[in-house]
């Protein structure tokens, strides 16, 4: 701990690099740490922060004594040789010893860790030294070059000046020679005895003297004595010198593509890396949603958000589910900011789907699970997970997954007489969503719900969805708003039977006085006709005549003539696709009533109708009695 704090100051600038290495090491050496963590009873998260070695994370190396650790299960075997006498205290000492062992293991790992840090520091120091040396060499070289340049310049200037002075000197000499010759000439004339000659020659000489006197000889130095020394610009050298103490601005980090399982519904864990020579104080991660409905060059692109982090990873939160995000990152140190990394596309996982309980249907061999996406934009696929429930109510782990389901429904093959827990996940490129709520499917019998959309307006259905009522009161015409799927004439409703060509059985509970029709019908059976009156439905009909209870088994408007002495109030309906039969039973007396031979060209659905006010209850998920499929 202390060691770290002492070093921290110095480590500041290189710590990021150390961490960078740390991360890459993490992936390869995670396993031994896990072992340690298990022994120490630490959570995995603690371990990972423990490993993480970065600036401003003093806490990460907190070495907590694990007071509440449970004794290691492995410790128990070591204490066998103890004497009888020590048995009592044995347990306690064992506990202490275990704890000590754990602590030793922990400290060993800590020491190992420190050693690694030491190596890293040493390595970084060496590198820094090299770096400095190179910098100094650069500066010296620059200075000597500058010196040479300046010296050469001065030499040049000196030469120019001397040449100019020499020229002036020569001109001066020539003027002196000229005046000397003039003086000599004048003196010679003056000494001349011959007046006539004197007079003859004096005038031109006087003119020349006058002319000469007129000539002004420039005796000033036309060359500055001072050397022109311009101000030496050493700013670049200064920068160089300064840059020895600071580090260069980092280069653009490299953002990683999205890793599996790194996304949640509202967060993304983003990782990137830096070039190993770079020193980075912090990163800035920018992200913005990629809106599919706006063109790529649109100016009204979504507002970008920014997070500042010290690590080379970041978990961005508060995102939209099932959305694509564009992310990029810059690195900054005291010197400056790096260019932005490439833009990476990450995707948050979808919201979990919502299972439509009322639209799930099953039979002993299979279950049809239907769900809502739960997401406004499309997902890639769905995964249906099922686990079998043990007889003791324990849940086994996921025993089967159906993956890459493209639509919001899935027919899952099951084993009869079991209980399954089924859930769904939505999947996109970012990964699978959380699990949807779990639906329990029991494969004891056939289970279905009524399709309320098909129900005649006069038919009301109980909250549990299995009892239907046909009330006395007349409905206003306005309430009779019918759509194509609604039974318009017959007060009927269809059930939603699982599309499996096997054996199905369900029961219907009726009142002795209720007039009803129960049976099966094709999904597209005429909504404007009575059940059994057409060739798309088969049904048992109960009619109350003034004298007796009459039962008909209707298909295409025809029924066999038959009498039943005991009025069935609980009717078993057995549908067998293989044999093409639909049988009816009086469940209470196990009596077979009638069997239709049906041409079941496509899937049929249970159908129910009430021909006079009354109620009818469907019983589902019942194991078919043996006699139902003889």
């Amino acid at each position, binding site marked *: 701990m202390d060691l770290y704090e002492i070093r921290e100051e110095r480590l500041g600038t290189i710590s990021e690099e150390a961490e960078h290495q740390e991360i890459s090491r993490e992936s390869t050496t995670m396993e031994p740490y896990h072992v340690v963590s298990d022994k120490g009873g630490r959570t995995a998260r603690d371990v990972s922060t423990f490993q993480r070695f970065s600036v401003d994370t003093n806490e990460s190396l907190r070495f907590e004594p694990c007071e509440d650790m449970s004794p290691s299960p492995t410790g128990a075997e070591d204490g066998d040789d103890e004497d009888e006498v020590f048995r009592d205290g044995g347990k306690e000492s064992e506990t202490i010893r275990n704890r000590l062992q754990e602590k030793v293991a922990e400290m060993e790992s800590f020491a190992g860790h420190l050693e690694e840090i030491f190596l890293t520091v040493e390595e970084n120091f060496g590198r820094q030294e090299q770096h400095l040396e190179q910098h100094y060499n650069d500066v010296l070289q620059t200075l000597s070059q500058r010196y040479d340049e300046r010296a050469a310049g001065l030499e040049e200037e000196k030469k120019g000046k001397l040449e100019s002075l020499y020229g002036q000197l020569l001109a001066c000499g020539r003027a002196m020679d000229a005046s000397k010759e003039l003086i000599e000439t004048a003196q010679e004339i003056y000494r001349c005895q011959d007046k006539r000659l004197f007079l003859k020659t004096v005038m031109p000489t006087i003119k020349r003297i006058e002319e000469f006197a007129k000539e002004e000889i420039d005796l000033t130095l036309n060359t500055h004595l001072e050397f022109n020394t311009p101000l030496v610009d050493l700013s670049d050298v200064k920068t160089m010198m300064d840059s020895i103490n600071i580090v260069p601005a980092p280069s653009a980090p490299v953002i990683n593509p999205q890793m599996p399982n790194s996304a949640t519904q509202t967060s993304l864990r983003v990782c990137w890396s830096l070039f190993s020579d770079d020193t980075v104080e912090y990163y800035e991660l920018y992200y913005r949603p990629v809106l599919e409905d706006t063109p790529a060059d649109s100016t009204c692109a979504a507002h970008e958000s920014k997070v500042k982090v010290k690590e080379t990873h970041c978990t961005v939160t508060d995102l939209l589910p099932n959305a694509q995000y564009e992310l990029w990152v810059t690195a900054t140190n005291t010197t400056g900011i790096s260019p932005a990394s490439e833009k990476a596309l990450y995707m948050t996982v979808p919201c979990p789907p919502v299972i439509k309980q009322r639209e799930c249907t099953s039979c002993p061999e299979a279950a049809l699970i239907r769900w809502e996406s739960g997401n406004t934009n499309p997902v890639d696929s769905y995964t249906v997970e099922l686990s079998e429930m043990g007889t003791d109510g324990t849940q086994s782990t996921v025993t089967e997954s159906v993956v890459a389901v493209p639509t919001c429904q899935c027919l899952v093959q099951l084993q009869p007489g079991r209980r399954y827990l089924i859930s769904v996940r939505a999947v996109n490129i970012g990964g699978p969503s959380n699990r949807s709520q779990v639906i329990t499917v029991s494969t004891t019998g056939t289970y279905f719900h009524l399709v309320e959309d098909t129900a005649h307006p006069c038919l009301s259905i109980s909250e549990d969805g299995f009892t239907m009522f046909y009330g006395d009161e007349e409905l206003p015409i306005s309430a009779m708003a019918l759509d194509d799927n609604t039974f318009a004439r017959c007060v009927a409703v269809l059930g939603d039977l699982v599309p499996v060509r096997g054996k199905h059985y369900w029961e219907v509970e009726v009142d002795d006085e209720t007039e009803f029709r129960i049976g099966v019908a094709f999904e597209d059976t005429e909504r404007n006709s009575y059940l059994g009156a057409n060739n798309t439905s088969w049904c048992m009909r109960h009619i109350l005549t003034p004298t007796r209870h009459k039962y008909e088994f209707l298909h295409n408007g025809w029924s066999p003539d038959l009498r039943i002495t005991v009025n069935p109030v609980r009717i078993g309906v057995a549908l067998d696709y293989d044999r093409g039969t639909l049988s009816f039973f009086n469940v209470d007396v196990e009596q*077979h009533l009638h069997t239709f031979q049906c041409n079941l060209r496509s899937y049929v659905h249970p159908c129910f109708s009430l021909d006079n006010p009354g109620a009818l209850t469907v019983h589902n998920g019942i194991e078919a009695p043996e006699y139902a499929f003889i």
Partner: protein
Amino acid sequence: MSLTQVSSNKCAGGFQKVFEHESTELKCKMKFAVHLPPKAETGKCPVMYWLSGLTCTEQNFITKAGSQVPAAEHGIIIVAPDTSPRGCNIEGEDESWDFGTGAGFYVNATEDPWKTNYRMYSYVTEELPKLINANFPTDPDRMSISGHSMGGHGALICALKNPGKYKAVSAFAPICNPVQCPWGQKAFSGYLGSNRSTWEAYDATVLAAAYSGPQLDILIDQGRDDQFLSASQLLPDNLIAVCSEKKIPVVFRLQPGYDHSYFFIYSFMADHIKHHAKYLNA
């Protein structure tokens, strides 16, 4: 109790056989037909007794009813006895087709000269089952009964008089209320005497009204164009009315266009075998 095989023919994977034996109950040689399904070669099978109608022998059913294939499928042995004692040299036994030979009515006669031989009720409910169970791979606890016309009456009374003995019962065009119809009145007065109260012991409708015992499930098929239905010999409505009142489960199917013949029986035999199989194989 020795059996003499009269014939044996491979049929529906098993064998259709006819045996003859000396009946102690009827004091004459009696023939009966037995169909053994393939399953009888390896294990015990339930038995369905078939009682034929007026004028029939054991032959009519086995040659015309088409019972063997469905019975083989469900692993049921079918035993079809003759309809009356034969060759007993009773005066007047061959005088009419609806009384005497071929018309035993499945009663135990109490009147002379019939009371010695005409004990068909005991024969089909006691002697024959014992004989069958002793000689064939049967499960004695699983037996059922069916019949046609007079045999339908026989099947119904056997079931109603012996609660629990027969696991299932069914009938084709049975004489449901013999006390009320000419056939029954003729036979009962001949075999049982003029005291009508003794007749009621063999009347399905009367017996049903007094039935108490395990749940029965009765399947009855009746041709709508049966001349004996319109002649009020069969009177199924009387039985249905009583069963409705007594909550005895009956499914009565009036089959349009069918008459009283074996063509009618043949048409619905499979349904009846299935009805019996449901209870015999439960």
